[in-house]
């Protein structure tokens, strides 16, 4: 039986009282290891809630430094920390919130040479990155390593979220079943070019954190095989089916992708 400290019993009381969590669930959270790639608009709220929930080990990957233009949505960071690395800023905030959490930082741009080493010891990965090439790389690496991936993206007033459960990769679709390959550079704008309402990150990042917690606890129905689409202007949430595509280049019947590949990083608005 896991021995909670008195402070932990108080800290997690509202979790422990939930029949779906209980002491056993809280123990699972404290023993879990979650990696969040991108400490930005999605990663900020997701990391905040995962740390508050007592996820025992949180890895954070980001190569950027805090900029004034981040502060409208990237709530882990503060005005005083403009100019310092995002992982350092995030780590400081999260440790202040919950000292139970071991924070591991990776102040690096994720690429095909380092991604497997970074993700391999984690139970779950959250994708909060801001470009297609990295999203495809994370999907492919998590697929090869059989690590479940909670993926979300946002733009303007819209958000999307889904879960790829690569522990059961014969059953779960992957990001390439949804979109087989990245759009040509220049066709889909980034948040930098197209804008993003800051609070959208709050909504979608919290959905990611919730899905991650459900996966760790093994409760409810995570968004596996479903794509959640949110339109904040009409405040409509819609779930559509995300099927495993037999012709998927990664996880289909005749896969063409058998190793990690990198696409060009470039962006410019058009769609």
């Amino acid at each position, binding site marked *: 039986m896991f021995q909670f400290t008195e402070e932990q019993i108080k800290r997690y009381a509202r979790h422990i009282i939930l029949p779906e969590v209980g002491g056993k669930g809280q123990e699972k959270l404290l023993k879990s290891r979650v990696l969040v790639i*991108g400490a930005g608009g999605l990663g900020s709220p997701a990391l905040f809630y995962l740390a508050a929930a007592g996820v025992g080990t949180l890895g954070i990957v980001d190569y950027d430094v805090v900029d004034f233009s981040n502060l409208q949505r990237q709530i882990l960071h503060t005005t005083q920390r403009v100019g310092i690395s995002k992982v350092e800023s995030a780590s400081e905030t999260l440790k202040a919130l919950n000292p139970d959490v071991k924070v591991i930082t990776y102040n690096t741009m994720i690429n095909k040479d380092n991604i497997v080493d970074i993700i391999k010891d984690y139970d779950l990965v959250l994708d909060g*990155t801001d470009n297609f090439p990295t999203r495809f790389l994370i999907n492919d690496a998590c697929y090869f390593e059989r690590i479940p991936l909670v993926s*979300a*993206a*946002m733009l303007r007033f819209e958000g999307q979220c889904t879960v790829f459960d690569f522990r059961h990769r014969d059953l779960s679709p992957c990001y390439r079943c949804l*979109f087989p390959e990245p759009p040509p550079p220049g066709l*889909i*704008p980034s948040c930098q070019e*197209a804008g993003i309402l800051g609070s959208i990150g709050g909504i979608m990042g919290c959905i990611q954190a919730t899905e991650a917690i459900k996966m760790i606890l093994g409760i409810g129905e995570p968004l596996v095989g479903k794509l959640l689409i949110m339109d904040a202007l009409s405040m409509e949430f819609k779930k559509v089916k995300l*099927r495993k595509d037999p012709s998927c280049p990664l996880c289909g019947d005749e896969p063409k992708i058998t190793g990690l590949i990198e696409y060009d990083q470039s962006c410019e608005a058009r769609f």
Partner: protein
Amino acid sequence: MAITVRVPTPLRRLTDGQGEIEVNASTVREAIEKLEEMYPGFKERILDDKGEVRRFVNLYLNDEDIRFLKGTETELKDGDVLSIVPAIAGG
């Protein structure tokens, strides 16, 4: 068939800001053609030069991806909702 097309925010520049558009069409392709008549430039955002749905855009008829139905030839019925969902990558 009277259906509703849900337009994502990036394409609303073409639709005078409208997020939902009613069209009368019997197939998905016809619905896209009707949208092109109403909002010139719409079609090329959805379909490539060969008339295929672009690979970073998905079309859902109600909650089903049309790739798993009959693609753009999928037939429509009254009250259907066709959602246009482009890939987005902001984080």
